[in-house]
């Protein structure tokens, strides 16, 4: 159990920087997810905490110790790799015991620890098997077991579910969540999957191009994205973005684009009027665009031609062309009968409208 503190951590390969000035404090027992597209520096950051990559600048502290120059074995961390990284020629038992044997733990204690871990993970019947005789999910469980037996101060996860198929991934996600309750340890989890980030993290760190974009609780990140990138990365289907001009019309501020004119909610008028540029980016999540007309006139209706529909069984996702942009609307009742290329009315929930600066792409609040 320990706090992990990253202070202005940077990493460069030669003159090519990949991680810039990452500062982050992870509380004891907190589960933090680093999320971002590939190449955003999330794995490199994790590997620097593990000691598998050297740190070019800044400091990393685990517990009360600065670990910059400590080898991985002395950092008291355990890591789960994307491709499991099991020792293929060893049995499951030996895989779990290897780290303890290297640390000269006596066999009786090893046996106890292995039993403890296998009971948690349901691996007991597989102890004498070799990794190649196990399914992907079982192998990943062994990799988790290898961490649990050691009781490290920090768990590091490097995209542990990426190699599993979709169904197994969903199942393992739930298992990981349950495991968290049983084995409380400070954890850093790297993923490119926003669903994993949303469901697993106490806090989520969104990264892009080696910079931290936003740190916050999953809901905070989802509802109050700091910039267009965060808004687009979290959520599926992704948030819709439309370039709009702000104009005053009949005493109300409206966001206007071709085929579209949406009344700006009162609470946002002040921050927008303080904003110099009248051309901004309007952001609306697909689930906040509804088909049909609202009960009362909100001034947020528009019409658009249906260009694509996706029937998901539980919901219908509809794409419509507005202002030369494909706008997606989700959570439409799956039974709704729609004809492609017909024009349909839509309305936007005014409580869920976001604006971003068209140059810096930062959220305007």
């Amino acid at each position: 159990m320990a706090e992990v503190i990253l202070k202005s951590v940077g990493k460069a390969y030669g003159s090519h920087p990949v991680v810039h000035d990452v500062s982050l404090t992870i509380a004891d027992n907190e589960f933090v997810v680093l999320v971002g597209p590939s190449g955003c520096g999330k794995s490199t950051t994790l590997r620097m905490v593990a000691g598998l990559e050297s740190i070019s600048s800044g400091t990393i502290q685990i517990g009360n110790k600065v670990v910059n120059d400590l080898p991985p074995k002395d950092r008291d961390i355990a890591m789960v790799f994307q491709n499991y990284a099991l020792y293929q020629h060893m049995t499951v038992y030996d895989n779990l015991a290897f780290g303890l044997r290297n640390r000269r733990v006596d066999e009786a204690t090893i046996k106890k620890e292995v039993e403890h871990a296998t009971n948690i993970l349901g691996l007991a019947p597989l102890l004498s098997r070799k990794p190649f005789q196990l399914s992907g999910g079982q192998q990943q469980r062994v990799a988790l077991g290898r961490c649990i037996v050691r009781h490290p101060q920090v768990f590091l996860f490097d995209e542990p579910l990426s190699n599993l198929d979709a169904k197994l991934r969903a199942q393992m996600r739930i298992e990981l969540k349950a495991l968290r309750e049983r084995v409380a340890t400070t954890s850093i989890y790297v993923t490119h999957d926003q669903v994993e980030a949303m469901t697993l993290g106490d806090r989520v760190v969104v990264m892009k191009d080696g910079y931290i974009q936003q740190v916050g609780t999953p809901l905070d990140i989802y509802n109050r994205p700091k910039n267009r990138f965060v808004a687009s990365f979290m959520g599926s289907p992704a948030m819709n973005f439309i370039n709009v001009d702000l104009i005053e019309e009949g005493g109300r501020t409206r966001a206007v684009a071709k085929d579209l004119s949406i009344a700006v909610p009162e609470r946002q008028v002040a921050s927008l009027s303080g904003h110099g540029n009248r051309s901004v980016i309007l952001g609306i999540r697909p689930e906040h665009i509804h088909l049909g007309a609202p009960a009362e006139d909100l001034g947020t209706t528009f019409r658009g031609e249906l260009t694509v529909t996706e029937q998901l069984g539980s919901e219908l996702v509809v794409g419509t062309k507005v202002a030369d942009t494909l706008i997606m609307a989700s959570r439409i009742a799956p039974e709704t009968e729609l004809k492609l290329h017909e024009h349909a009315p839509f309305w936007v929930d005014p409580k869920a409208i976001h604006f971003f600066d068209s140059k810096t792409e930062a959220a305007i609040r």
Partner: protein
Amino acid sequence: MLLLVAPAALVLVCFQIIPIFIGMNASFRDWSLVNPAKTWIGLKHYRDVLSDPVFLYTVLPNTFMLMVSSVVLSLASGLGLALLLNKPFFGRPVVRTVILLPLTVAPVITATMIRWSFNDQFGVITNLLSVLGFPEIGWLSDKWPSFSLIILTDVWIWAPWFTIIILAALQGLPREPFEAAQIDASGKWRTFTHITLPMLKPVIIVCVLIRSIDAFRTFDQVWILTGGGPARETEVFSVYAYVEAFVHLDYGKGAAAAGLGALIMLVVGIGLYKLVNRLMEVSR
């Protein structure tokens, strides 16, 4: 379809199958240059070879000794070199090329070079050793020194072969288990014995299998270095068959010796193959 394999089949029949039958036929006959009658004598040659004390107590032990020591030593040095070359250092491409050079030299040339290097009067190495104050050794006139030279030559030729194959295998190994081992506090030696070697095992086993069968028929080095001497002390199987057939011109006995060798190799080969299969199962 049959027509498509016909050219290859024809070559195989003409140059492998027919000669094997001619050879087998010869081994049952009194077939020599001085006796053109080719009298059928049954298994006499086989009995002769198998009751020849030189074959039983010198040639066979020598052959297996050469096989085992050459394979073990070239594997060990090849593995060592591969591990060294797997780490980046200044001038690595040059060293890598230089290490491969022995493979580009014909074994006959290599053996000739070694023979001259160890020549008792003009040899560079013998002279160097005597300058350094080492006692004089009859490199090519005593059994064990000359046998060591044969092994040394074989290792010199074959270690690079092990090096390139093991190096390729090393570079193809996934990085993650080694990183996991680092986190698992595994020291360098323990990582080598518990992670690297087991991961290399399939490749090493195949190399050993191929080289063992190949080493059984080593001829050039022995023939050039010692010719089987002194006094047939370093004779190996291939030299024995060659001498019978082409020095004593007793084709029948030579063919019988070759046939016996093939049988022995068949048995050894099957044994090795089974061993390999079992080891592969274990190492997976």
